[in-house]
């Protein structure tokens, strides 16, 4: 049989591979040693730099003189300390951090980073600008919200939301219907924290937008933020043809708990979508009213477990009338109804726990 391999190329391959393994091992040890040295330097310099930083922040106006004389390594470390502090501190100290960040030239560097060719650099620059909450960064960040790279866009949306300027939040409301889901979600997250400042814009957007996903996101925000100006709109949406719009609207309405919703919730118990029936039962639990009992008692026999669960929960919270209905359900011929009633009564400590 002819040999498939000659020895020489095989030996060369072995030597080459052995060399690669040795080089890799040496590189591994070297890179660890270098980063260990860096770590030690960091732990040595950090307390000193933090002290200098605090001194600079506490002086009014911010006095960066000693910090301007630092070498490159210390400046890098200083920047990371500032960003860490910016993450936790707001108010006057936050403003002082932002000012110091600008004076030390880091802001300018980040703004330049927004124009980088590398998407990752642009995204990191946007994130850092968001942390510092500097108003000077707004034009650059607004531009970055239209970046071609989705990571940059979503980071810019988040960063814009960090700056204390309500006027730009209106721009974020429009992004709720963005074609890119990640960008839309980020806008929704920012508005979930600060959306009260632009409540009217959110309600108006929910009413007028042609984007289905945007409308759904706005309805969710109305519920999360309990925006009472959106109550009328929710009442209207609870009769929408789209079951998802109905579900989100009923859920949002249940979060707001306006007395006007009572009738719609009762109607919702008969909806064709189990998710709507579920949320309607959940909504009715807010009222604790005897008027809700007949509908909820019927819902206790729903074929869907979750509807039965929320109906029973609502009954347990509906005072003595609800408890009575649950007690009666203990005699129901259907085991799932009996079991659910027993569980909720037990949770409300109205029947003794199982032995």
């Amino acid at each position: 049989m002819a040999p498939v391999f000659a020895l020489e190329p095989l030996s060369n391959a072995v030597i080459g591979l052995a060399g690669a393994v040795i080089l890799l091992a040496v590189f591994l040890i070297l890179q660890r040693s270098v980063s260990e040295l860096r770590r030690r330097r960091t732990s040595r310099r950090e307390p000193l730099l933090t002290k200098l930083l605090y001194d600079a922040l506490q002086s009014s106006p911010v006095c960066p003189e000693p910090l301007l004389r630092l070498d490159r390594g210390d400046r890098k470390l200083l920047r990371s300390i500032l960003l860490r502090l910016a993450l936790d501190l707001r108010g006057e100290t936050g403003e002082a951090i932002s000012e110091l960040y600008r004076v030390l030239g880091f802001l300018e560097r980040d703004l330049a980073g927004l124009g980088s060719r590398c998407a990752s650099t642009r995204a990191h620059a946007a994130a850092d600008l968001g942390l510092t909450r500097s108003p000077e960064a707004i034009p650059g960040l607004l531009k970055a919200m239209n970046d071609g790279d989705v990571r940059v866009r979503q980071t810019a949306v988040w960063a814009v939301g960090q700056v204390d300027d309500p006027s730009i939040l209106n721009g974020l409301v429009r992004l709720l219907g963005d074609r890119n889901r990640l960008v839309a979600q980020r806008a929704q997250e920012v508005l979930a924290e600060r959306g009260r400042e632009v409540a009217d814009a959110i309600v108006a957007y929910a009413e007028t937008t042609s984007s289905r996903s945007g409308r759904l996101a706005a309805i969710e925000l109305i519920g999360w933020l309990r925006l009472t100006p959106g109550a009328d709109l929710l009442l209207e949406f609870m009769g929408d043809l789209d079951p998802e719009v109905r579900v989100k609207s009923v859920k949002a309405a249940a979060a707001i708990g306006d007395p006007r919703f009572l009738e719609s919730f009762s109607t919702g118990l008969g909806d064709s979508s189990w998710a709507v029936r579920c949320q309607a039962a959940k909504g009715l639990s807010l009222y604790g009213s005897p008027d809700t009992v007949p509908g909820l008692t019927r819902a206790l026999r729903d074929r869907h477990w979750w509807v039965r669960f929320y109906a029973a929960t609502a009954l347990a919270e509906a005072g003595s009338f609800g408890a009575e209905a649950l007690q009666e359900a203990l005699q129901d011929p259907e085991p799932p109804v009996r079991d659910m009633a027993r569980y909720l009564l037990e949770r409300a400590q109205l029947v003794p726990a199982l032995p």
Partner: protein
Amino acid sequence: MTRSMLEVILGWYTGFMLIFFFAINSYYLVLTIAGFWRTIRVFKEVRRPDQRRLLRSPLTPPVSVLAPAFNEEANVVENVRSLLMLDYPLFEVILVNDGSSDDTLGRLVDAFDLRRSARTFDPALASKPIRAIYESPSYPGLVVVDKVNGGKADALNAGLNLSLYPIFCAIDADSILESDALLRLVRPFVDSPGVTIAAGGVVRVANGCDVRSGQVRRVHLPRRSLPLVQIVEYLRAFLFGRMGWSTGNSLLVISGAFGLFEKRAAILAGGYATDSVGEDMELVVRMHRYRREARQPYRIGFVPDPICWTEVPENLRVLRRQRTRWQRGLIDTLLRHRAMIARPRYGTVGMMSLPGFLMFEMISPLVELSGYLLLPVLWMLGLINASIAVAFLTLAILYMILISALAVLLEDIVFRRYPRILDLGRLLIGAVLENFGYRQLTVWWRVRAFWEYWRGDLSWGVMERRGMGARAG
């Protein structure tokens, strides 16, 4: 058979082996490059504010943590405590006592002031009868289910029925999650809600670590070589294998010790298969199949940074049981879903990962073992030059060492869980040691698994644990 015929047959087989050798090494190379690239990329994307954002975001979905337990009385209380301390906005812990014969349930009842509950549930998946459900007034997020023994898959199905939230996390009751592991792992679900149906996380070896109060306090390497070698193996498997496959949405395995799933997607796919010993892989493949057949967009992701710590076998007997079980699970899953293999309808899963697993995970031990047996025969028959054979073996070993060393490098650049420089040296030694004895043993066990599978062996075997509360050496 004449000698010349034998020579021809052996010649052909040697040719096949060489082709296989290049194919498997190319396979590893591609996975290594893909895993390296993706891990670095994900690592660069994740920043500190991101964790906070997820903690506060109303879009972060609530999670049910399902932990099946069988005879875990030694660690169960500590482990449940550590689960209850996870940093996550809204979650529940459902521990399923799968008919333990020890005092697992009693310890839980005492430690958490558990009371019998009349809690009902939607029996979407079949499971063995539930004897009782316990809840605690002091720990509202904890539910303990006591059921008749039915195996891990059955216990997970029972837990799934009881879970209230849309996402569930399947873990082993003896595993330890880092406090923010869930928050990191949920990222794909937040980024692509409704599209992400499952996500896996990295599992690390806890042997040797300082574990107290259900948390890994300090990371150390074990003194024994067997767990040390497994650390290198786990690094390679998770950082390259799983990360690599996740690149093309073709990940087939999410470890049973730590995975996050969309509940609806898992139930629609039929839940965990109770007649499989590789229930974790089987579910993932079935979820792929269901979605591809329904032509629904989906994503199964893998996140390299969340960390779950688990104890690995410290003796050969237990290791053998574990490895034969894994191989039986692999064979079982691939045979069950053989209709997907090489079918374009199943996309990258059907055309790449399943054939890859078939060739290089399932069949490769048979080829490798035949290679070990064939070399001396070829040499004795004078059909191969001894120097070439040795050079060839050395090449194969060096290649594996190189890939393991790359895994150690990636770990060190991105995670650096092993703090001492000496640890790096020991990990590299582990990468070398693995090729002398350990690898051949695991190959032999994996070949034996074919025989066990043929006999219909569905046993799990018992994992003997030293207990993570004590320093394992």
